[in-house]
Structure formats: C-alpha cells, structure tokens
C-alpha cells in the first residue's frame, strides 16, 4: 500500500503549494504583498493534485485509490488548518 501513501504525499505537496497562494486565504490573512495564483494556475495545480489518483486507478488498484482519496481529503483539511493565519 506504499503506492497509495506516496500518492497522498505528492497530492498533499501540490495542495500545500496551491494553498500558499490561494487568493481568498491571502486576503483573509491580510497578506496583500504576496501575489495570488492566477485562476489558470489554480486549475492546473488542482488537476496536478488529482493526477496521482488517476495513476493509481490505471496502474495499481482500487484499494490504493481509496487510500489516496481518503488521505487527500484529510491532508486538505490539515493544510487549511496549518496555513490558517494566527
């Protein structure tokens, strides 16, 4: 099941990147000096975060996909919590 965990790691890294320049988060954190991702970049990063799941579905197995998807949703929540302005 190491493939599923690796896929979670890859997707979570992309989500971390996506969250870092998320426009709504930057506004809420009053970080107006940081430039937000353009909409096209955000869409691209979102697709990139989902790619490992597609790879698992095509080349590994459904069990790994479920682990990846569950791990992805929990990672998304944790990233939102960790990157919240204090």
């Amino acid at each position: 099941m190491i493939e599923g965990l690796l896929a979670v790691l890859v997707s979570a890294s992309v989500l971390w990147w996506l969250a870092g320049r998320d426009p709504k988060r930057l506004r809420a954190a009053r970080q107006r000096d940081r430039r937000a991702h353009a909409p096209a970049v955000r869409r691209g990063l979102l697709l990139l975060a989902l790619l490992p799941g597609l790879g698992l579905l095509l080349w590994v197995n459904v069990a790994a996909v479920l682990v990846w998807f569950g791990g992805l949703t929990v990672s998304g929540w944790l990233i939102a919590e960790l990157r919240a302005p204090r």
Partner: protein
Amino acid sequence: MIKLSQDNTRRVLDIHGWSGILLGLLLYAVICTGTVAVFSDEISNWSSPLSGESVDGFPTGFNAVFKRLYEEVDPRWREEVDAFVAHGGRIYLRFEGELESEQEGHHEHYGVEYQIDGNTLEVLKRTEGLDHERAAAREAGALAEFFVDLHVRLHLPNPWGLFLTGVLGLGMMLAALTGFVVHRHLIREAFTIRRNKEALLRARDAHVIAGTWSLPFAFVLAFTGSFFSFASSVGLPAMAMVVFSGDQERALAEVFNRHEPYDDTPAALANVDTMLADASARGGAKAVFISMNYVGRADAFARVFTQVEPGQLSGRAFDYAAASGEFLHENPVLVGKQPSAGNTVAALMTPLHFGHFAGWVSKAVWFALGFAAAYVTLSGMLLWTLRRAQRRAWQRMAGVVNWMGYGLPLAMVLTAHAYFWARASGVAVGSVQWAVFWAAAVAAALMIGLGSQARARAWMIRLSGAALLLLPLSRWLCDGPSWASALNHGQQVVVSVDLALLVAGGFCLWPRSRRREGFVPVAEATS
C-alpha cells in the same frame, strides 16, 4: 456552486442546523465510537495479548484439537460449528444447536464455546450457555466490543438500536447534502480559516472547512452505516415477510447461500487443517473463519473465509464438502449463490465503511476520516449554539453539547482503564465498564453544571490527556506485557498502540494559547 435565493438558503440552513442539533448528540457518539472501532482488532490484540508469539490465522494442528473437542460436546449442540481467530491470537471454537425456549414455538441458540491458545493449542476456557452468556465470557475482546456495540446500536436492544443508528446515518447524509448546498463557496474557501477573527467567525470557518474536505467520505460513511443498520433491522425482516412468509431463518439461508441437507449417513470429517490451507492458498491470504454444518454426516459442508488479499477490497469465501474435504466452489463473499451486481455492491459497503482492506494504512486513513466527521459534528453543534448564545435555553444546550463533545472521549478512556483493572481483579468486566462509563458521564455533567462551560471543557480535555497517558501504565500494571516482552514475541501492536496513546495524551495536554472570547453579531458571521 449552487445558486439559491436568500429565502431558500435560509430554509436549507435551517434544515441543516436543526437536523444537526436534533440528531447531532447521538450522531457524535456513534461517530466517536466508530472512529475508535476502526481499530477494534488492534484494541483487542493490544488489550489481551497471549503470552508467546503472536498468531495470525489458524495454526497447523488445529484439526486434532477440533476433533477432540467435537467428541466432547453434547451432540445436540453440533448443528452449527464455527471457528475464528481473534483477540490476541485466541481461536474461538463454537458449537451451537437450538434450545426450545419458554415461549412456545420459539428457539434460542445454545451451545459450547472454547477459547484456545493459538500458540500452544491449549484450551484456555470453556463456556456453555445461550448466545449472550457465551458473548459475556469473551472478556479478551470486551473493551473493543464495548466501543463496537456503542457504535452499532448505542447499547440499545435489537432492533431498536440498529434502527436508531440507521436513522442517525440518514440524518448525517441530510446534514452533508444540505451543508453542500448551503455553503456555496466550498471550493473557493477550501483553505480559508480566519483564525485571526472573532470567536463566531473562527467557529464557522473551522466547521465549514472541515466539512468541505470530509464531505465525500462523510456521505459514504453515513450511507454505508445506514445500510448496515437497516439491512438487518428492516431489510431482512421485510424481505422475509414478503418472500418467505415471515420465515427469517429461511431468508437468511437464501441470502447467505446455506447448503441444504441431503444425506444423513454418518461420515467422519475431513482434515480441517487441509481445508484451511487450501482456502489460504486459493485466497492469497490467511484463513481466519470456518463455518460448518451437518458435521458427522456425509453431507457435511464447510465455508472458509480468508483475509483480504493485498490490493483487494474484500476477503474471499470457499465452500468444501467437509466429509471428503473436496473443494466445491468459491462463494460470493456476502450475499447470493453466484456472482452478481447486487453482491458486488453489497460487498463494497464493507470496505467503504470499515476501511480495513489495506491493513493499518487504510485503517489510519479511516480513523482520520472518522475524526474529521466527529469534529464537523461537534463544531457544527457548538456553532449553532454559539449563534444563539444570548438565549438561556441555548446556553443550556451549549452545556449539553460540551458535555457530550468532551465528556464522551473522557468516559471512553476511563472505560479502558476500568477494563484492565476489572480483569486484573477478577470482577465482571462488562458491568465495571458500564459503571465507569456512566460515572464519568455523570462527573462530566457535574463539571459542566457547576462551573463555567469553558473551564469544564478545558478540564475535560486535560483529564482525557492524563487518562490517555496513564493507559499504557494501567495495561502494564494489570498483567500486560512490557514493551521488551511484547517486541520479543512479535506483538508490535502493544507498543504501537501504547505510543499512539502517549502521543494523543500529549496532544491533549499541550498548552494552547488563550483565544479571544468576544461576541460578534450573527450577521457578521454568516456568509
């Protein structure tokens, strides 16, 4: 994004909030215990390991023990024979028959159950009696069973407990759907938690963001949970009534493809070890359950279930002619007599709900998903009461929410302490667990009622943390193995669970910064 008028948004928000607040307290209890129950096997193995090497699956030599004990059992209790591996390497061997009950025309399951050491194949315990009497004797699994039973039916009698948890699952689905509709900017706000703002806004963001991310699985867990609750409490009786004139035994036999008897000529049983080994080879994983009927006759039949093969979602089931040991066919693992779409869908429910298809990895993920669902439920109820904090009735309701939200985990941890000390003292584990659980619940209610809610909440978190930190000590003091001994015998689960408890306890006791407690108008917090 779903566009709704302001009135419709208000209506959906009301459905979301009221369904959450009315069902939320019990739902939270079901989710919390379900989250812990994901690791029920590990809890049993951790709380009651046998001395010696850890055992996974049936050991060679089980056949001889089986046949010896079979001869000892009263023939009346040999109608059904099951054996399974559980609770720290024990093998449970169960012989069952039907006993006419005092109520005319009714029968009860009566039988003999042996607990066998999986290492030495020595009989540890023999219990004879009705279903519930034999279940009560399975003290090795009593702690995990306490959480599982609370999760499955809130300790209410059947079918009412199942019916209630099924309704709670429907309520969770309703809350998830309406939450999806009402929080219109789910994707756009997926990373926005304004922790630098007022209390109400912080509470709103915490609830919405956790809900956003856990939404798909909250729906899946609620749906599959409702399915399991209603399948046996409503679905099976309804099907039995419509198709089998109310005969539930016949309905069960059809659903689970029980073989019909056809030859009562006396015949010896084939080698059980051989059938188990054959099923393990075919299933690609160890056999962990064997169920037999008509043992001692020519038409004896055995079904062997194997663990989940790596990469798969479900284990497999193989049927044997038990008198000859001949392999008959692979059986659909859940329902019916042959592979079908219905069986595939039904078989999917199990891994999706329990998350036990890929060992500790999938269990850890499902635990986290359960934790997120519990967080969403609790934060939602707290938010609802916080928005109405000016009214006295809702202040009381906030107290009840805090009592359930923080008192339940405390009661659960103290129940685990009670389990160890009750077993070490030789008193009835089940009664002591219940007594301590309710005593903790009453103590938590007093803490909430007698002081400020915020202070009581802080104390309950601290007490839970301290209780978690002390749990490995309780386990060890009550005749549990030390870490060195556990590692020497391959019982890594003991050390792993102890470490997890220490981390969780440390997290609860970790000092947190005091946050601003300010009131903000409701309008400011609603988006």
